[in-house]
């Protein structure tokens, strides 16, 4: 039997750069915000899952939060750290073993693009030595081909970034709070053709904590809960094209995002047309465009029309995408990034998003995270 699971508390430490706090301190800050939001104290939490990619272990947070002897599992799953922490805490409650669980993710990265070690990914040294092991190249190579095959223009890439920065101006937790106009975005230095500086997110800092509860516990507390309708995490299938691949199969394979999305929709018993707001992995502008189709919200190539007509804007008429500015405006602290998307959907579904609130009835919120070495996590939340 599987219990219904609700998010009853959500906390965030503003994303960006906070020189005065370590990544873990930002995590502790987010946990305290989430506890206050749920009206709980730390000793109420029965189990915890969390982690970071570059800012240390999460379980040490008990030094600051309190030595309550709770089981605290460190999650180290790259870009899916937050998504995996959410899935684990959801399962802990769905199984009936616990009534209150914490999922937390935080991070603090040095400035500039991520640098990866070939051996960590099972790759030969020459791949890194010759300058081919950069995540930014993968995204450029993927969107370059996609643009050729599906008629996506460079202007559309620019529009995605313009929207992100505009949404960032009205989001308190965003890093980039100033608008950037389309011309500036299009004429900025080229990082990896066709993507300019403003079309890429930057590694950053930040933290998010979510408190999950069983239905019984939520009712007992009288908490303002948002239901988790589905969580799905998938790694890559055969013959897929992912970040850090020196060779790709000539057979076109599946995509982890498509698999995670289909599994989540199936579990939730709804379809893309039912979603009111979506947070899609936007490591760069092209990723948001491709992920719109991979998650089933439009067909390949239709993004050109969607962006030209502003259909993914808040109040844009079809589907608001990345309402808090996404990774482009918030930056990407790896361990926290996937949970930020869920935080944003909780905020939207509770109707607490202020200036960036999606108008009308917001029933289903969709979030999607993607990362190396080819994995995707999708969560569908419902306001009952």
């Amino acid at each position, binding site marked *: 039997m599987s219990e219904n699971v609700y998010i009853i508390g959500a906390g965030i430490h503003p994303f960006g750069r906070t020189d005065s706090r370590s990544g873990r301190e930002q995590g502790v800050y987010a946990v305290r915000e989430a506890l206050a939001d749920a009206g709980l104290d730390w000793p109420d939490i029965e189990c915890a899952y969390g982690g970071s990619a570059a800012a240390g272990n999460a379980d040490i947070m008990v030094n600051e939060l309190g030595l309550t002897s709770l089981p605290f599992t460190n999650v180290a799953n790259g870009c899916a750290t937050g998504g995996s922490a959410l899935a684990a805490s959801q399962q802990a409650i769905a199984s009936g073993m616990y009534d209150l669980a914490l999922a937390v993710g935080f991070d603090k990265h040095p400035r500039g693009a991520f640098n990866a070690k070939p051996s960590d990914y099972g790759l030969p040294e020459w791949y890194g030595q010759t300058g081919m092991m950069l995540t930014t190249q993968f995204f450029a190579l993927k969107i370059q081909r996609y643009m050729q095959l599906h008629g996506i223009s460079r202007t559309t890439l620019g529009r995605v970034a313009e929207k992100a920065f505009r949404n960032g101006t009205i989001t308190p937790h965003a890093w980039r709070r100033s608008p950037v106009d389309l011309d500036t975005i299009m004429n900025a230095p080229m990082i990896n053709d066709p993507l300019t500086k403003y079309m890429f997110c930057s590694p950053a800092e930040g933290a998010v904590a979510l408190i999950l509860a069983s239905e019984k516990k939520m009712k007992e507390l009288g908490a303002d809960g948002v239901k988790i309708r589905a969580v799905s995490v998938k790694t890559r299938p055969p013959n897929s094209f992912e970040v850090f691949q020196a060779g*790709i199969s000539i057979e076109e394979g599946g995509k982890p995002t498509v698999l995670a999305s289909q599994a989540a929709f199936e579990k939730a018993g709804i379809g893309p047309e039912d979603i009111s707001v979506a947070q899609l992995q936007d490591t760069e502008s092209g990723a948001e465009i491709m992920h719109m189709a991979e998650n089933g919200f439009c067909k390949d190539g239709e993004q050109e029309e969607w962006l030209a007509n502003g259909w993914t804007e808040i109040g844009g008429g079809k589907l608001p995408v990345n309402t808090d500015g996404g990774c482009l405006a918030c930056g990407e602290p790896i361990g926290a990034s996937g949970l930020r998307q869920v935080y944003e959907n909780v905020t939207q579904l509770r109707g607490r998003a202020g200036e960036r609130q999606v108008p009308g009835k917001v029933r289903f919120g969709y979030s999607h995270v993607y990362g190396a070495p080819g994995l995707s996590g999708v969560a569908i939340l419902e306001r009952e």
Partner: protein
Amino acid sequence: MGEKIDPNLWSDGATPHLMGGRLPSGQIVFPMPTGDAAEGVEPYKLSRRGKLWSWTQQGFLPKEPYEGPGSGPGEGPPDFQPFLLGYVELPGEVIVESLIVDARLEDLHLGMELEFCIVPFNARYDTFAFRPAAQAESQAA
């Protein structure tokens, strides 16, 4: 000629080939697996001709473990020149990631014919690359 950046990356001789592997299933992979993963995989000489599958230009100096121009002692971004790279589809075999040389960004297009070549990489090493096939032919002529 410099040292090969990886002794097993391409075959020796007058007409070198990039080395892939043939899995027991018949599928061709690149690079040739190493260690336990190489069991049952036959080294396979990949085609020297292919078609451009996707491309980009590296516009900034990569961090470690990059060892190309700009990364040496006392060097920095001013010593770096943007370079081209992409994926090349070797028909019926595999799509390989490679540096692209002797071409300009604006000349690159989907499906363009490319040819395998060995190029100097840094003070010590040579590496492999692909270059426009027509140019390769005219140079050979």
